[in-house]
């Protein structure tokens, strides 16, 4: 339940609702759309990326001198768990054709395609369980231009405009032209898409879409896709080996500079294992658990940007790593679910963001960075937010409109997860609005790829959120679900093709020593050791007591304990 002091504001929301409902029923936008100048102004004024301390130049590696998100620069300027003399590469523990790092949507797609199209065996190495990935959590849907009023080229235009025309065109083409085939691929595997009576896809709007092209599986879209893909992967134990709780911590190279596998780390026994692979796919997802700028995140527990730092040390270039996506609608109240995702489909179905006076202040479906910035402006500059008992601020997201627009029962039928999430705290979203504020959601950039998922490093492929270039500096809703499918499939295809011909030279992790030397030469002082693997949410006093154990600042002792050391860079550590 909302605290009593919010009653006045809630009453205003109710008062303005009939008029806003009338607006929503018309074909005109309920609030004027921003033009290019207005968009730029709200971004520069209020998007967290534009705060002065949000970016700093990284001083080592392929992007040296480029301004990146500060936390990303911190992440990259860190020590490896390993040095070359510690790793015995003479007899790899595991050998495979394709090594897939990450067991989310992209990784599972890649493994299935490697098997189906090329008869190639693969190993999926994943940090937590297979499916512990942001894929599992995507709620609202997947974009693909299937409807007759729509076209892949229109989808292209929407995506590239949403990304401020900075997206790599060949990647957006791949995304949008493969979209319809992905819908069919998933359906044939057994994904239950929401449908109209005649079997056509049920489609909705998302932010920045000019046609309804958001396809969904209620609000468990990602969970449905992920569970289907995982189930199919597990139907082929002879072709796909799944190693859970075995994250990669570094890539292995060969004497000619090709990627040749990775070193894995067993989370339970704390052992390291070497994998020799003809090609390697990084599908490690994003970095929400770095809590950039202190924001809450919608991301899963393991989203710590591991793939970025591994690839960077090996020499792969990053693209658009100065750009962070804050989802416009993270939960602001109740506190227990603060930061959790409220699917954009709520706005797609007619939900409206409102200030404390129950007034609209932005078109509900601007592209995400614009919408999020407008919400921050309404709270911070205009002081029109609602403050929660713990001191958060938020604006209303008027969900009761949805049943009024589409009929009673619609919300519970189409948004069961959302309904369930709030009713646990006594908030019935069919009767009361939700209180929301932007939440750290997505890594817009990543390791630069081309349309074959190739990187600067031969034999190294990247797919999904870990990759960069596709979304420019702003991703639209529903394009990441499509992304991990399209590029997971492509990575599986091209990495297998490559693996069939690849001949590896002598294995080496000498790049780690070279990187360490770069850090030294650049005079970087840090005790951060990466990949981070998992955030720590222990309170500060607990951490202090944990750190009594000495001599633990560099690799050699427990990886999980090492992670706790750096107080200056504290991805999750309480300050």
């Amino acid at each position: 339940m909302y605290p009593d002091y919010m009653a006045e504001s809630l009453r205003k929301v109710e008062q303005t609702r009939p008029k806003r409902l009338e607006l929503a029923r018309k074909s005109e936008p309920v609030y004027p759309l921003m033009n290019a100048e207005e968009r730029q102004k709200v971004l520069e004024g209020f998007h967290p990326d534009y705060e002065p301390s949000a970016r700093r130049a990284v001083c080592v590696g392929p992007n040296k001198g480029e301004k990146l998100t500060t936390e990303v620069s911190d992440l990259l300027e860190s020590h490896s768990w390993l040095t070359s003399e510690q790793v015995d590469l003479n007899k790899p523990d595991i050998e495979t054709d394709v090594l897939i790092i990450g067991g989310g949507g992209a990784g599972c797609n890649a493994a299935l395609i490697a098997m189906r199209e090329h008869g190639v065996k693969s190993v999926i190495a994943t940090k937590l369980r297979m499916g512990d990935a942001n894929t599992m959590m995507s709620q609202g849907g997947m974009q693909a231009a299937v409807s007759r009023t729509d076209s892949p080229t229109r989808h292209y235009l929407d995506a590239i405009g949403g990304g401020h025309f900075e997206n790599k065109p060949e990647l957006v083409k791949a995304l949008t032209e493969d979209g319809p085939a992905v819908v069919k691929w998933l359906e044939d595997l057994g994904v239950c898409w929401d449908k109209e009576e005649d079997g056509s896809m049920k489609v909705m709007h998302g932010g920045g879409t000019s046609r309804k092209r958001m396809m969904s599986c209620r609000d468990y879209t990602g969970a449905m896709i992920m569970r289907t893909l995982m189930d199919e992967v597990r139907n082929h134990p002879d072709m796909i080996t799944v190693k859970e709780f075995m994250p990669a911590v570094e890539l292995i190279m060969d004497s000619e500079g090709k990627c040749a596998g990775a070193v894995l780390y067993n989370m339970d026994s704390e052992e390291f294992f070497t994998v020799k692979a003809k090609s390697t796919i990084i599908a490690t997802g994003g970095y929400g658990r770095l809590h950039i700028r202190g924001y809450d995140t919608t991301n899963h527990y393991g989203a710590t940007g591991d793939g970025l730092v591994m690839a960077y040390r090996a020499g792969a270039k990053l693209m658009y790593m100065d750009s962070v996506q804050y989802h416009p609608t993270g939960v602001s109240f109740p506190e227990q679910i603060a930061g959790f995702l409220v699917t954009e489909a709520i706005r797609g179905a007619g939900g409206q963001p409102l200030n404390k006076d129950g007034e609209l202040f932005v078109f509900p479906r601007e592209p995400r960075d614009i919408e999020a910035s407008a919400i921050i402006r309404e709270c911070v500059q205009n002081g029109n937010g609602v403050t929660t008992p713990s001191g958060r601020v938020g604006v209303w997201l008027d969900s009761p409109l949805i049943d009024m627009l589409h009929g009673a029962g619609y919300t519970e039928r189409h948004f069961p997860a959302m309904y369930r999430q709030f009713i646990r705290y006594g908030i019935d979203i069919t009767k009361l609005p939700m209180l929301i504020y932007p939440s750290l959601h997505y890594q817009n950039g990543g390791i630069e790829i081309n349309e074959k998922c190739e990187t600067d490093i031969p034999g190294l492929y990247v797919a999904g959120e870990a990759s960069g270039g596709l979304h420019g500096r702003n991703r639209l809703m529903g394009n990441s679900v499509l992304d991990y499918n399209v590029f997971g499939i492509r990575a599986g295809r091209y990495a297998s093709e490559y693996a069939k011909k690849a001949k590896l030279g002598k294995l080496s992790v000498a790049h780690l020593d070279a990187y360490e030397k770069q850090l030294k030469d650049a005079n970087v002082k840090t005790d951060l050791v990466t990949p981070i693997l998992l955030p720590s949410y222990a309170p500060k006093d607990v951490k202090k007591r944990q750190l009594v154990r000495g001599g633990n600042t560099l690799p050699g002792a427990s990886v999980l304990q090492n992670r706790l050391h750096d107080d200056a860079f504290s991805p999750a550590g309480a300050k």
Partner: protein
Amino acid sequence: MKNAPAGVSSGSSSLQKGVEQDKAEESLITVYIMGKAYEVPAKATIMGAIEYAGHQIIRGAGCREGYCGACATIYRLPGDYKIRTGLACMTMVEDGMTLAQIPSVPAEKAIYDIEKLKPNVTAIQEMYPTVFRCVACGTCTKSCPQGLQVMDYVQAAKRGDIAAVMDLSFDCVVCGLCMLRCPAEITQPLMGIMAKRLYGRYLRKDSPELAERVKAVEDGAYEAEYAEMMTMSREALTKRYYARDSE
């Protein structure tokens, strides 16, 4: 809210700029994590409480938002004989609660070729025969943290009603609590996944426009327009973008 996890209502949290922090003292309660007493914030979720206590969860946390089923938890409350179940990320602590996480429930997934199954009772009989051991006790339904009618979908499976299994098991997060509690040792969530796949593969109504669109792409129907837009100047593309009509 600099760097505190969701799940712990710290009472002193706010990441958001320009908001005065509430310094109110947080009230603590006692919970027993695997039998050991810890003082934790009264308004924490179980997951928040475990982390507040200083545990580093490796197994037992995944999406942290109620979708992945990694954090199945069983607990009892003081003076109450009942074993209760919940997702640690979604369930609030209560004073005197004694709890343990069940991060993995042993279960054997059937290996099958979806192309060789039919969406009927035979598939259930062959792949998940334990379904027919159901004694209709309803323990599965009682244990479901999602509030699903688990027993009803088991019954539907026995009738070969794949559509009903799909519908009733749609929101299953595969936490495994039902199969842990089931006296007939059925693996409900796994059967549910197979049924959903059978529905999606065989019982869906085909989309008339989907096949057309896939073929149009294959036939290169959009190549010319792609080529045009990909070579356009940024100005021209910007103009086209802002001038586009909206549905």
